[in-house]
């Protein structure tokens, strides 16, 4: 038994002696926040994303690689509002890293700095996967990105004071370019106002709110509940009076329900990138909105 202990202690000592990297280590729950941290942090940060655009962020598992990443992180940047409730608490408890626990400076929740939409007045699991703090998919409105950028730049400077000037400068540059880009998107998105759409999951509340699209229905009968043939038939019947122009889904969504409905209605399915990496053009946040606006305009004409 003593021998076993000695072997274990030896391994532990060896691993503990490994050199730490110099840059501020950031674990971003979603790709959009990873991209934002890269834009604000430049070479001063090392970023690791917990999820990709191909993954449903509600259903991610607390994989060992993520525990290892949480262990080393100086800053955790997540959407919050219980979006990551299914896996983030496990990561935080297993990683043994108090720097990124809720309440610590290294814990950053993007949803805390924006105005939440769809805050439920009634919280009941019979209503599906409802988020008591409101719809957590805040990244689909560029105004929210700017608000998060403002708060995140302050937080980065707070955690990493030696590089504070760098964060401030990159933030000023990002905010200026973002405002210019937003004016462009909003000018181009004018024809979208009032266009009726059906969504896969209630993931686009902020996107629809921004240029003024109308959500007529959702493929998922309740958030997080898979559609059945009966629920799709009921949706189809309900759309007869107010036919939508398109069906919107995220890159990670299962496409079968939306394809079926699109075939019945003779309207296109728009696969939106939803986050950075969700399409070929969405390589950064600017590309994400360029592509999103173009894809929506393509069906508005």
């Amino acid at each position, binding site marked *: 038994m003593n021998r076993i202990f000695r072997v274990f202690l030896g391994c532990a000592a060896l691993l503990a002696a*490994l050199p730490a990297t110099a840059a501020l280590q950031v674990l971003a729950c979603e790709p959009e926040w990873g991209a934002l941290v890269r834009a604000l942090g430049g070479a001063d940060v090392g970023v690791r994303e917990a999820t990709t655009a191909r993954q449903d962020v509600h259903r991610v598992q*607390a994989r060992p*690689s993520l525990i290892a990443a949480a262990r080393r992180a100086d800053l955790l940047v997540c959407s919050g509002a219980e979006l990551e409730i299914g896996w983030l608490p496990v990561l935080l408890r297993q990683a043994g890293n108090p720097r990124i626990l809720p309440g610590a400076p290294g814990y950053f929740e993007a949803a805390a700095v924006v105005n939440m939409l769809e805050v439920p007045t009634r919280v009941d699991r019979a209503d599906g996967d409802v988020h008591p703090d409101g719809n957590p998919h805040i990244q689909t409105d560029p105004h929210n990105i700017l608000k998060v950028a403002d708060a995140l730049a302050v937080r980065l400077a707070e955690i990493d004071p030696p590089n504070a000037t760098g964060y401030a400068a990159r933030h000023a540059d990002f905010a200026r370019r973002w405002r210019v880009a937003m004016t462009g998107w909003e000018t181009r998105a004018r024809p979208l106002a009032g266009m009726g759409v059906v969504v896969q999951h209630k993931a686009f509340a902020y996107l629809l709110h921004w240029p003024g699209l109308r959500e007529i229905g959702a493929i998922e009968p309740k958030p997080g509940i898979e559609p059945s043939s009966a629920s799709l038939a009921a949706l189809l019947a309900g759309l007869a009076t107010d036919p939508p122009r398109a069906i919107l889904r995220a890159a990670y969504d299962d496409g079968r329900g939306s394809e079926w409905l699109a075939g019945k209605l003779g309207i296109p399915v728009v696969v939106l990138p939803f986050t950075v990496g969700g399409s070929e053009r969405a390589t950064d946040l600017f590309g994400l909105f360029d592509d999103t606006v173009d894809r929506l305009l393509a069906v508005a004409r």
Partner: protein
Amino acid sequence: MQTGLRRMLAPMLLIAQPALAGDASVAELRDELRLLRENYASRIAELERQIAGVEARAAAVTPPATAQRTAPARGNAFNPEISLTLQGAYRSMKNLAEREISGFAAAHGHDHEEGGEQRGFTLDHTELMLAANVDDRFRGVANLALIDDAVEVEEAWFQTLGLGHGLTVKGGRFLSAIGYANVQHPHAWDFADSSLMYRALFGEHGSYGQDGVQLSWVAPTELFIELGGEIGRGAGFPGTDRNGNGIGATTVFAHAGGDVGAASSWRAGLSWLGTRAAARESHYEDSLAGEEVVGAFSGRSRTWIADAVWKWAPDGNPAARNLTLQAEYFMRRESGDLACYEDPDEASGATACASQVDSRYRSRQSGWYAQAVYQFMPGWRIGARYDRLDSGSVDLGTNASNIEQADYRPTRSTLMVDWSPSEFSRIRLQAARDRSMQGVTDNQLWLQYVMSLGAHGAHAF
């Protein structure tokens, strides 16, 4: 203006000249009054609307912090997360007096008829879990298993939050981190029952609980590496409660894990459990009269477990389809003494152990299981599991001629399909061919439900 005057004068005229008023003028005056009333009513309604609007605007302008402060103080704001898991099943199995794995010492002292023992419609343990951060340094968790006449404290522990450097200390009663499936509660199992391996190792509950302290450390590396150990009371099978100071059971565990591309991730582990037993009673068949005798083992018990799990999902998105492969292997060595005697309640005096016989006891046993669970469409999973144990070598010394020894390789094959309309509910159909008892082939069919109410938290990988 004129109508205004007439309206003002009308009531006066009505009072001043009652006698003069003919039928026609009375009717006219009534109409005037009605108009007057309606006019004021509509103006009052308009005013009320305006006031309501002003109030609403004022409420909207008020900063939310103020609004929160005016809310009455609530005493339950710090309530812990509470979850309740309902579990039950319909089981069709052979009618057997005892379900013990042939060739393996069974864990006794826990033989209330429950769980896997009962046939027909059964209610399984209802798990009540409470968890919350105690303060800025600790988190506390209690998991109570409720069944008729009994509340079992499955887990009741605290855990440090802020030690840092990847260190976490856990204290209290907790499921040991040895193996892979050991930390899973029954509601999280992929099959309706635990593997034969875990039943042989730890008894009917299928998991090893520690009353003690656990220290674990996560290495600051790209590859997930976790090292840890536990010391505890060691009251659970294969040990016994020995009423002593000091350490009753020790475990050491190491886990490693990582990703292979975006689609796959894995974890592998090696663990060791060392404990002691004092007069640990198991039932054997006596070789003389064929009756049941008691064999009480005292000595050391050491168990090694190797485990591996591989999870795959297209693009790493398990929402629609995913596959989990899982396997564990164990080797257990026990060495000490065995006392063979008759159960005082059922003593016949005809067995080889009518007067107690003491001998040495040395065993070396092993076993494994492997399983695959595939979600082929949202909500639907199928799974297959194969269990195999090896009773190995058991050296009973002078008792070898007194006790029938089963040299047997218990096996079981299990198939299941389950449906989960949401992550909080699951209904499972399971069929198994159980050959864990020598000479018996038990074909089992189970229909099981698992329902979670409340704040059901995340499950570990």
